[in-house]
């Protein structure tokens, strides 16, 4: 049987267990909602406005930088697996690839995108 079938089983059971626990708690727990209880918790002060507002854009930029590196480092895994059989030439090629990645990092750095401004 395929390995991925078992991975699917792990996903299924991994969802069933927390679902069961939460469902059991839902059966046992009291259900007495009231407006005060359901207000947003902000240390006792009444909430002003919605939480879904535009927030610091810096987080978005970090996510973008991450995306570039994440996608490109995934390309390195096949290289790492076959490295010992490929010899010195493949190693140099891989290093050139990593250097290009680093150029990207340096560019982001010099642009001031890594600063918390």
């Amino acid at each position, binding site marked *: *049987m395929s*390995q991925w*079938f*078992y*991975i699917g*089983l*792990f*996903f299924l*059971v*991994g*969802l069933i*267990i*927390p*679902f069961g*626990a*939460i469902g*059991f*708690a*839902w059966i*046992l*727990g009291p*259900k007495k*909602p009231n407006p005060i*209880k*359901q*207000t*947003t*918790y902000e240390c006792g002060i009444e*909430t002003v406005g*919605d*939480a*879904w507002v535009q*927030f*610091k854009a810096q*987080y978005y930029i*970090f*996510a973008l930088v*991450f995306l570039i*590196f*994440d996608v490109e*480092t*995934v390309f*390195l*895994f096949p290289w*790492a*697996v*076959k*490295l*010992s059989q490929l*010899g010195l030439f493949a*190693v140099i090629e*891989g290093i050139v690839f*990593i250097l290009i*990645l*680093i150029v990207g*990092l340096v560019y*982001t*750095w010099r642009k001031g995108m*890594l600063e*918390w401004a």
Partner: protein
Amino acid sequence: MEFLKDPLKVVADWLLGIFTSWGIPEIFAQVLIGFLGVLILLSVLMLLDIFLVWVERKVVSRFQDRIGPNRVGPFGLVQPLADIIKLLIKEDTTPEGADRIVYNIAPLLSMMSVLILWAIVPLAPTMLGVDLNVGALYLIAAGAISTLSIIMAGWASNNKYALIGAFRQVAVMVSFEIPMLTVLLIPTIFARSMGMSAITQNQDVWYVFLTPLGALIFLIAAIAELGRAPFDMGEAESELVSGYNIEYSGMKFGMFYAGELLHAFTFGGFWAILFFGGYRFFGLEQVSAFLAVAVIVFKGMVGYWVIMWIKYTVLRIRIDHMLAFNWKFLTPLSFVLLMVTALLNAILAGTSSWVYISVMFLSNILIGWISLEVARAHSRREREKVEGMKKVVTT
């Protein structure tokens, strides 16, 4: 003796015999046995998780010179069960204006992202969920689901603290994923495989001796991935109260809490698998599968203890310092380490293993020392700049 060597196969064959004698087709019987196996493994993990609550509380109280839970049962061992009963009978509140569907899915995903990691953990030579040949990538992919659950929880709660906590946590998690990915490449180079089982079996010499710096970077990145102190800016009790899980109550909060503890133990286990030989311990794993499981649980516990030790010793770091530390220090360092390792691996291909190990070890120490010197010189310059500015102000 067959049972001691390969208990899973013995039990599976026995069950298959029973099921087929009941007239169930073999393919369904196989599926049923797989399902039962996964259910038992994950249930045992959840039981272990309950025990981890006790371990965590007991260890933290020792670090803080307290006694910790000692009233309920011997050494307070039954305390977590009492906690669970309390969590079960708590009212489950949903804040007004929350995105209900996303709000309810987030704790499920949080727990699931940890449990599915155990699919690839080799517990013994013959005991493992799935011997996936892309294990390292699976580890990262499962980590991405936990990131998703955090941003879902923070976003859906309609709470500003929760949202800020989730933003910070996710920024840290995705940032530290880069050094972690890079360092994961190093055991892959040594073992010539991404599979966790192959990585374990190739460690005649623990990889921590081949790449001590890599093991250290992996530990730092893992702690950041877990969102534990000193990288727990997303929870930051003193300012954000509890971060992304602030609005959750009852068992839903319990799922986040239990998921975090189990995640820490799991990363302790992966640290052991990648750098400390996994279930291997002086041929003990050949004697019995049960001994191998004991070895890996012990090593995982040691890793977990190290993570706790750091958590309760080091102070929280500010979010901008944390991200700067990652992007300006850890990421370039891990890339340099990867390049040097790949190069040395090719150059030293034909030499004896002793030369190979010692050159690898020394190169790691050298890179670590040089990077620390560079960081030290930089901080000295920054400090002088600040002190110079102070002098201008005072005069």
